[in-house]
């Protein structure tokens, strides 16, 4: 165990500081074509005409792909979990967000590829666009997605739900109801390295793909599914990522590069511009989160109702998974015996959203912690003491039925108070994560406790 507690040198550090680390854009495989994409200038439109013949005739152009070239155009990032696919690799007949790829060109240079993109003949009929997740639920809102404006595949429900205890009784017994609305906005991860891929057809019939993905085997599966080839026809090379922060979880450049490499029978590279990265790469979602807490005068949270709307953008991708994580964390690091949570994945005409540093969790943690400060202010209670009182203890049960074996809320809260010089009353200073007893075990928390000794 020499490594524990030691400051070890980074295994890739010398490469980084001497310029020897090879990112995807630094790989050299001989003659390589450059890729540019035709992207939608509209947020929502029908594509009424698409003709690549003039572009194909231009000098230096080796291949152009549209939806007609993709063996299986529509795929979904959650198909492995049984969710049907909903997103075309290349738009077919309609576009649902600005920047959505419609066609891609491989040519001798970036300039030649861009000239060919500009020569593609295309016509649109713009449709009304929708950006507000609350408006998306209005009965007369434009319909954005073939499933309607709400993702419908949470088992028998069209939303992720959590039900624990008796929420109506909790609200009946409360001294006060404290409500709040929280709307964390979309964020672009903005890694220093933009999306990039290099696809090389090999003599043995395989395709080598140099990828900046954060999820190598997942991307391999996505490419294989779109191309309808077995996994043994693909060799992925990756692991050196110039920043991702969640923005390189969705497969971005790999599949279109692979298609163009197969069609042109040459190595092709697609390096997104910074403008493309902001326009068309997936972002952290925007949310609308409503919380109502049933609280007592002395600072117990008897129950919580939560409604979350998660902006998925134009397609589902991983958003349903993000909302499930969001649901698991909606009571924060605190024990609330009665919970009622509904989380909806809502479609809009924004770029599809994805992971960013705590997928689905940071948004609800922001809402929960801000809300606790609001509860403390309404009750006139110290916000640190409110947290310490309601913090998870051994034997408490979470919203999704997990019994706490080793919760750390009390220790972390006390350590944080120390660091920032917060004075706490001695009864709070002495608190531990041990099982609730005495004043910390009021009647409303008895039933949710696991039997003594239990915990998993």
């Amino acid at each position, binding site marked *: 165990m020499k490594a524990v507690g030691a400051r070890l040198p980074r295994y890739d550090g010398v490469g980084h500081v001497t310029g020897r680390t090879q990112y995807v*854009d630094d790989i050299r495989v001989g003659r390589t074509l450059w890729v540019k994409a035709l992207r939608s200038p509209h947020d929502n439109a029908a594509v009424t005409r698409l003709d690549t013949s003039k572009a194909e005739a231009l000098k230096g152009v080796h291949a152009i792909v549209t939806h007609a070239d993709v063996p299986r155009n529509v795929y979904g990032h959650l198909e492995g979990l049984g969710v049907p696919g909903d997103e075309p690799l290349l738009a077919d007949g309609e576009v649902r967000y600005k920047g959505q790829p419609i066609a891609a060109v491989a040519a001798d240079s970036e300039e030649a590829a861009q000239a060919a993109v500009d020569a593609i003949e295309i016509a649109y009929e713009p449709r009304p666009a929708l950006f507000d997740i609350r408006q998306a639920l209005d009965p007369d809102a434009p319909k954005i997605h073939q499933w309607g404006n709400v993702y419908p595949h949470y088992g028998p429900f069209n939303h992720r739900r959590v039900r624990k205890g008796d929420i109506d009784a909790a609200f009946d017994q409360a001294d006060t109801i404290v409500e709040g609305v929280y709307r964390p906005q979309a964020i672009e991860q903005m890694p*220093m*390295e933009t999306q990039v891929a290099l696809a090389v057809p090999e003599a043995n019939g395989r395709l080598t793909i140099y990828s900046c993905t954060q999820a190598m085997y997942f991307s391999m599966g996505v490419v294989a599914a779109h191309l309808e080839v077995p996994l043994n026809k693909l060799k992925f090379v990756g692991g050196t990522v110039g920043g991702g922060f969640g923005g390189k979880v969705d497969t971005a450049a790999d599949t279109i590069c692979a298609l163009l490499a197969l069609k042109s029978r040459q190595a092709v590279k697609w390096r997104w511009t910074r403008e493309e990265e902001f326009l068309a790469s997936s972002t952290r979602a925007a949310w609308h989160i409503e919380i109502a807490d049933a609280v007592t005068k002395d600072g117990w949270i008897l129950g919580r109702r939560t409604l979350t709307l998660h902006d998925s953008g134009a397609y589902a991708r991983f958003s349903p998974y993000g909302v499930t994580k969001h649901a698991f964390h909606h009571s924060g690091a605190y024990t609330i015996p009665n919970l009622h949570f509904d989380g909806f994945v809502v479609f809009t005409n924004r770029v599809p959203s994805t992971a960013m540093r705590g997928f689905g969790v940071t948004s609800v943690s922001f809402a929960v912690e801000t809300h606790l400060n609001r509860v403390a202010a309404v009750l006139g209670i110290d916000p640190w003491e409110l947290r310490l009182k309601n913090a998870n203890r051994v034997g408490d049960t979470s919203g999704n039925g997990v019994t706490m074996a080793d919760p750390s809320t009390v220790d972390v809260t006390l350590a944080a108070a120390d660091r920032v010089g917060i004075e706490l009353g001695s009864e709070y200073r002495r608190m531990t994560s041990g099982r609730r007893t005495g004043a910390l075990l009021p009647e409303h928390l008895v039933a949710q406790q696991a039997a003594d000794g239990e915990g998993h």
Partner: protein
Amino acid sequence: MNLTVNGREHEITSAPLTPLLHVLREELEITSPKAGCQQGGCGTCTVLVDGEPRRSCLTAVATVDGASITTLEGLGEAESMSPLQTAFHEHYAAQCGFCTPGMVVAATALLERVGGPVDRDDILDALGGHYCRCTGYVKIVDAVMAASRTVPA
């Protein structure tokens, strides 16, 4: 056109208005300067042109004809790292590493100009136009301060 890059002379055949970044990466295959934004905003394409830090993405190669260019590769190899390269490594100042080429090159110019210990404000001024998205600024500044104290005055 001619360029001396990391001590080696090259005859350049790219068109005169080609960005220096593209000449280095595609014609000479010197790949440490990165195409982070290609609009002068992020700093990771920074190289030294006759000792001065310049954004190679915005520099037409014809405007530096005959110049001496230094990239990160020219500052030292694994066995012969410069004090700054060593300090970046030892202080964990490179995380994903994509901004590191510009950071080290720009900091090298700062240390050569000052010729002794630099303070935090000098570093913030010299590296102000360089983005790091892994949020390693504290360690980067620490590394430059440490390196400036190992350079013989």
